[in-house]
Structure formats: C-alpha cells, structure tokens
C-alpha cells in the first residue's frame, strides 16, 4: 500500500471540492476559469492516485492525465479568447445577469 498515493488522492479530493466551490461562488470569469483548472488538477490527482494505491505505478492513468492536461490548456486558451473578446466589447469580466438562475 502506497501512502503517497492515498495522501495525494485525498489532496485531489480537496482540490476538486475547492475548485467546485470557487466555480460556483465567483462571477468573475477569470476566477471561474482558475477554479475550473484547480478542479481539473484535483481530478487528475485522483485518477492517478486511486489507481496507484497498491504501490505499483500504472502508466495508463498517467498517460490519460497527460492527455487531460493538453485538453485543459486548450479549453483554457479558448475560454480566454472568448473572455478577452467579451471584455473588449463590453468592458466587463462578468456575464450579464449572472446572478439570475
């Protein structure tokens, strides 16, 4: 049993929760994006940590996380394009009526 894997699975769970909290709390779009990335890192940690608790390294989830990191940076870049364009058009970093559910 690998204690590192268990500890970092826990860390991953914490990051998921903190990320979700930030994602739901903030209306500022860049903060939301930061929260999304934190949540993503949490999921990646959980993916590898949970699979490696027996103490053996597993290349498959590690490869999946590499794929996930590239997907996350693509999504972040795309979101930043949209946010910048929105900022340029409206001068705001929040969506209109974001509080209305």
């Amino acid at each position, binding site marked *: 049993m690998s204690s590192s894997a268990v500890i970092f699975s826990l860390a991953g769970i914490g990051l998921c929760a903190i990320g979700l909290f930030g994602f739901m709390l903030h209306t500022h779009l860049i903060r939301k994006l930061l929260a*999304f990335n934190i949540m993503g890192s949490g*999921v990646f940690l959980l*993916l590898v940590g949970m699979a490696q608790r027996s103490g053996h390294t597993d290349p498959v989830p590690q490869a*999946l996380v590499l794929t996930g990191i590239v997907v996350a940076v693509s*999504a972040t870049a795309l979101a930043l394009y949209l946010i910048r364009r929105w900022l340029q058009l409206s001068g705001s970093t929040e969506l209109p009526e974001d509080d209305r559910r």
Partner: protein
Amino acid sequence: MMLNAPIPLLMITPLAAAVICMLLSERSRLLVSFAAVLIQLLASLSLLLLLLQQGPITHPLGSWEAPLGIALRADGLAVLFVLMTSVVAGIAALYAALYLTPGPLRAHFWPLFWFMWAALNGIWLAADIFNLYVGLELLSLAAVGLVAFSGSKEALVAAIRYLLAALLGSLAYLLGVALLYGAHGTLSLSDLSQQMQPGVASSIALAAMAMGLLLKSALFPLHTWLPPAHGGAMTPVSALLSALVIKASLYILLRLWIELRIHELAPDASQLLGWMGALAIAWGGWMALRQTLLKRVVAYSTVAQIGYIMLMFPLLRADNAEASTLALQGGVLMVLSHALAKAGMFLAAGNLILCTGRPELSALAGTSQYRPLSIFGFGLAGVSLMGLPPSGGFSAKWLLLQSALASAQWWWIPVMLLGGLLSAAYVFRVFHYSFKEAENSDTFHRPGVGLEICALALSAASILLGFIATWPLHLLTLPDILPLAVLPEGSLEQSLELLQTPTYETLHGTSEQQP
C-alpha cells in the same frame, strides 16, 4: 477498397476534411466539404449494409484489443446515430453553404463543422469511457466555437455560458471515469459491463458522470445555458446543436444506463431522471409560450423535447422486458424524430427570419399569406414535435405510452399529454402571428429555393419517419442491447418473439383509427 472499411472512413474523412479546409482558400473549402459529405453518406450507408450482413462490428484501433487498446464498435444503435448524423449534418451543410455569405465567416465555418462531425462519429462509435471524454471535449469546443464565431456580443455571452457548462460537465464525467478506473482498473465499456460490481465508488462515479452528461444535455434544471446558445447561434449552427450535439451526451447516458445495468441496479435514479424530464416538458413548453423571439421559441422547445427523451429511463425496467423494449424503441425514435424535426424547424425559422429581416415573432405578420412555403416547413416540423399522427414524433410517443401502460406507470401518461398540448400551443402561437394581417402588401424578402428545400426535406423526413418506423427499430435488435438476462430463459425468447412484430401492428392499427 476504402468502402470496405466504413468505420475508419467515418473518422478519417471529417478529420481530414477539417485539416484540408484550414489549408485551402475559401472556394475550395466548399468543394472539399461537399466531397466529404458525399463520402460520409456513402460510408454510413456501407456501414449499414455491413451491419445487416455481418451483425455488430468491432474495430480494434491500432490492432490492440481492448482494454489495452481502444475499440470502436458499430452495433445497431450506433449505426442509427451515424445515419442520423449523416442525414442531418449533410443537409445542414448544404443549407450553410447557401446561407453563409462568402467571406471569412463562411471560411471559418467549415473546419469547425468538420471537427464537430468527427467528434459526433467518434462518440457514436466509441466503446471506451476515457475516449468518450476526449470525444466530448472535442465536440464541446467545436460547438462553442460555432456559437461564438459570428462574434457579436450576444453570441459571445451565449458561447461563454455554454463553454462554462460544458467544461463543468466534462470534468464531472472525468471524475466518474477516475473513480471507475480506480475501482475496476479498466476503461473499456464492455469490460466494465462484465466486471461491474455494485458499490459505493461505482455509484458515486456513475452519479458524477450522469450529472455531467445531464448538464451537457441541458436537462431541466440544468438547461439555462441552452436557449441563448441554440437560439442565438447562426441558423445552420442552431440546427446542428439542437438536432445532434445535445444528443451526444444523451447517447452516452443511455449507453451507460443500459450497458452498466443502472436501470436494474438503481430504479430510483431512473425515476428521478423521469421526473426531471417531466419538469423539463412543462417548463420548456411554458417558456416557449412566453418568448418574443422566434428562434428562442424553437430553442425552448428543445428543452421540452429533451424531457420526452428522458421519459425512456424510468420505463426501462429490469422486471418488465416488454415495457423496456418499448421504452428503448420509443426513446430512440424520439431522438431520431426530434433530430429531423428540430433541424427542419430551425432552418424554417431561419428562412422566416430571412423573409422578415427581424428575429421577433411579431414580425411574422403576413408571412403565411406571402411566404406560405416557409411557414409550411415550420408547421410540418411542428406536427412531429406535437406528436400528431402519422409523424415520427407520434410513433415515438405512442411507443412510450404503451410502455408506460405495460409497466403500470400510468403517471407518465398525463405528462406526455400535457407536453403534447403545450407543444401544440407554442407551434400554433407562431402560426397565430404569421396569420395576422400585414399593413402593406408583400414587403418580404425571398429566401433562396435551396434554403426552403433544405428545411422542407428535414421536416418531411420527420413525418416520413412515422411510416417507416419499423426499420430503424429493427436495427436496435442488432444485437438486442438490453441485457434481459434477469428473465428465465424461456420467457425471454417468448416475449421477444411476441414483441418483434405485434408492436407495430398495434401501433399502426390504432393510428388509423385516430381522426
């Protein structure tokens, strides 16, 4: 040679078309796209033939067997969705070619369109839960790009909302994948369906995945991102989003539900989905009635129709094979007929907006007098959405109704009836506006004949589906994806035999008696 390998062709063609479109000049993009649409149609037809000859096909990518490698698989359900995509996206592509004026806007449409199509095919054929995640991300980002690319303020807000919802949905799905891998050590869907043991981790994993997928499918109350995105995008994009893109996450949900036997293990979750669907029907229909913009009416109608599709889940009962089969057939037919009807309706709405030059409903006054063809296309799609015979929507609702009776869940019946009434109300409301007298004579623009034909073809196809409903449903039995192993051996065959034909007999027998 190539047509012998329809599965790889269905993936390679759209990806290659996307790359080539990015490298070529605008005019050549159009030509490449037409050629690629043609190849896609041929490939999906040849896949259909292959399926009918050989049964379900598995394609081990890189020649590595799952779970080490990733397999693509084409069973009846997957092929149905591939065909649906080819028909709807093919016609939408034609519409887009005519609709978008030459310029950078049109040039940018094609690569995004092709990435979207590649992602859709990838999802229909996928048999690996992580690969589905990558497919979902490709689909979402391409779809967000398509919403944003007109660059207006409204489009940007809609795109950002859509992106945030899609990203959160994907992460929830990935979280589920992480837990499932941690608990079972495999990503292959067929492995999972064999090894899956009910347990805390699996339940939480599937709940997370389901939440993510429902957010992406915009099921009430997670629907708030949909109306601005679908209503605000350019017309061909709206059609693609409502008809195809939201179906991807619903399809994955259905696959998980059936193959991982969630309908057996957690009937309460199925009931919950059903109730969310019922609320979606009521809320979507009500909101569609209160909109002032034509395309928003159509977008809220999508919110309601997703609710209908969700009604299939509580009716998939492990203890009732007849009800389950009817529910699956009804649900899938609902997806197909909604894809055709909603694409047709969005294109018709786009034509009407081209006629009047304004997006408001009130601008429609006089259109039915001067532009009856555009209104006719809209109404034809409305017939299917309302579920009037003999449309595809009617057959779908009829199957769901029968399933509700067979499994003694009568409470879904008033929900369906109420939904039908609401759909009728919002479709007739549009008609009401169009029949108003216009002050002066014919001041409307005339959309091109090609645009009208595209809209009419899709709407008519949704009606036609009601007449030929048996053959898409026949594909669902290749193989019978509902694992009915819980039943005793003999009764299984018996009930299946009973089911194959009589269902449609009763269906059509009764439909003729209706006025």
